[in-house]
């Protein structure tokens, strides 16, 4: 992992509130794996104080692209950066998706994105596509969930990477009307290809639902989690997630209503976890 001042190549608004930022980052581009993230220092000052984690959206040659939504002060300031500006970046960080083994085992990938969850999944789709799965059968199906038509992102990128794309919007303004998890349920009823594997990134309730569905049908699933991160490098223990107890004595273990559990660090052991590992809570 590196800490570097990288040059912004461009930073353009794709849709209202959604930006695509490219960095010249040959060293990080070489090491990056889908599902990993960069931790970005937005300002040299204290406002905001902490870095902001963003998934690696795409790797194009020596460049890394980030896709982000403006939701607060940090992303607002980031949106004001211009080509030529320098950003202090740490990365690539975290453990990404394990997609090599599933391909070897001929598991057909289903990618499920909720909202900004598309960001790391494009990198994943492109990485799978670069493996050139021989059978069309192993090309991913991508389910994109968005609030409304105008917030659907990256459809074209997925298609270019050889994926089949299906869309769900909360308001039905495009594609299936409803949650992307319902779209998944429908898909699983109709699809006859087996075996499958699922990769998902999106809001916590969506991931929980996807995990439930996957568990029910015995489909292996990997989910990319979010947590508030103070350090992003495993030092502060602030980004804990409850995973099912595995007898590990490395950290303490606890009990709650749902049984044994322990904490893992989203920034270090994650952000990608096996869905069945997670102790899902309301």
């Amino acid at each position, binding site marked *: 992992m590196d800490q570097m001042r990288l040059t912004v190549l461009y930073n353009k608004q794709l849709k209202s509130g959604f930006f695509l930022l490219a960095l010249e980052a040959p060293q990080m581009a070489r090491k990056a794996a889908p599902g990993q993230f960069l931790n970005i220092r937005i300002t040299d000052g204290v*406002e905001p104080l902490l870095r902001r984690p963003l998934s690696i959206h795409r790797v194009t040659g020596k460049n890394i692209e980030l896709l982000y939504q403006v939701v607060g002060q940090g992303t607002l300031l980031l949106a004001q950066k211009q080509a030529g500006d320098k950003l202090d970046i740490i990365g690539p960080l975290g453990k990404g998706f394990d997609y090599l083994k599933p391909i070897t085992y001929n598991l057909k990938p289903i990618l499920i994105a909720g909202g900004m969850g598309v960001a790391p999944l494009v990198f994943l789709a492109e990485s799978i596509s670069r493996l050139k799965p021989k059978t069309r059968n192993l090309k991913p199906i991508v389910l994109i969930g968005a609030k409304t038509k105008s917030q659907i992102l990256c459809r074209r990128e997925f298609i270019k990477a050889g994926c089949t794309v299906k869309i769900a919007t909360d308001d039905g303004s495009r594609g299936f009307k409803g949650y992307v998890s319902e779209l998944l349920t429908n898909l699983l009823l109709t699809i006859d290809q087996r075996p499958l594997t699922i990769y998902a990134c999106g809001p916590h309730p969506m991931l929980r639902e996807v995990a439930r569905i996957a568990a029910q049908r015995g489909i292996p699933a990997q989910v990319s989690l979010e947590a*508030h991160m103070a350090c992003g490098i*495993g030092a*502060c*223990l602030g980004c804990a997630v409850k995973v099912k107890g595995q007898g590990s*004595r490395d950290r303490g273990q606890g009990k709650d209503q749902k049984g044994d559990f322990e904490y893992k660090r989203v920034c270090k052991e994650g952000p990608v976890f096996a869905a069945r590992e997670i102790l899902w809570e309301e």
Partner: protein
Amino acid sequence: MQPNLTVRIGKLKLRNPVMAASGTFGYGEEFADWLDLGCLGAIVSKTVTLKPRMGNPMPRTCETPAGMLNSIGLENPGVDKFISDKLPVLKKAGVPIIASIASEGDPDEFVVLAKRLDKMKEVAALELNISCPNVRLAGKPVSRLAGSTGTPAHRHTGTLIAQDPKATYQLVRAVRRVTRKTLITKLSPNVTDIVSIAQAAEAGGSDAVALINTLSGMSIDAETRKPRIAMVTAGLSGPAIRPVAVRMVWEAYQKIKIPIIGMGGIMDTLSALEFIIAGAAAVSIGTANFINPRVSREIINGLKEYLKTNKIASIRQVVGSVRI
């Protein structure tokens, strides 16, 4: 002439006064990618307890103006694992390792921990964390608090040892009896009179005091009306608290003779110097490690430059040199 950055803390001689603060530096390994750990004055390890601790529920951290709140809840693998797994890793840094210890309720645990770690030659000194605002234990059944599922109703009673001069004195004395290693007592800023607590630690036989631990704070998301931290209150750190920390170092410096390790919002050379000028013999870097993992190295170099520019032979001449 190379300026002299070495400082003494009890029996320890540090090559420079810049240490990594407990709980903000992992077990060192997390920073090895960015920093030659050997450049540090010392590393204070994450506070360890007798038994493993899960830590607190999420969310555990949030941002505040020029600061952050944390309520990690002393997540740690317990002293056995610390000795078997973490110490060997820490040792590789090649700098003095200061083991931070805390009890989960019964102050005797400090003594048990000190006895165990006293035998470890990899441990250069002990830091008594009697000031973690995220575990409040005094006067209540330990079992209700040590677990990770403490309910909010239990959280906010009890005082810290570091909030009571007598308790501080007794604890330090008890630990002093069982170890000859350098003892550092880490104090809480959540007190009316920091001087009386620092004096109690000194009287109890502490070789140094570390101040400050985090200020107790709280933040609420007005939209959801929920506290931003699951445990409701949490510890405030970062530049926001620096004026409070500098003031406490200065107050303590005038009244105690043992060295002070100053911390609280140090972000760069100038803010490290603020503490030293106020009276700190050494400084610890906490939250800043999260923002810039290389900050310690930058500060060490910055201090060297400062001495050179101002033609000062040793950093010790700067300690407490505030011009009133």
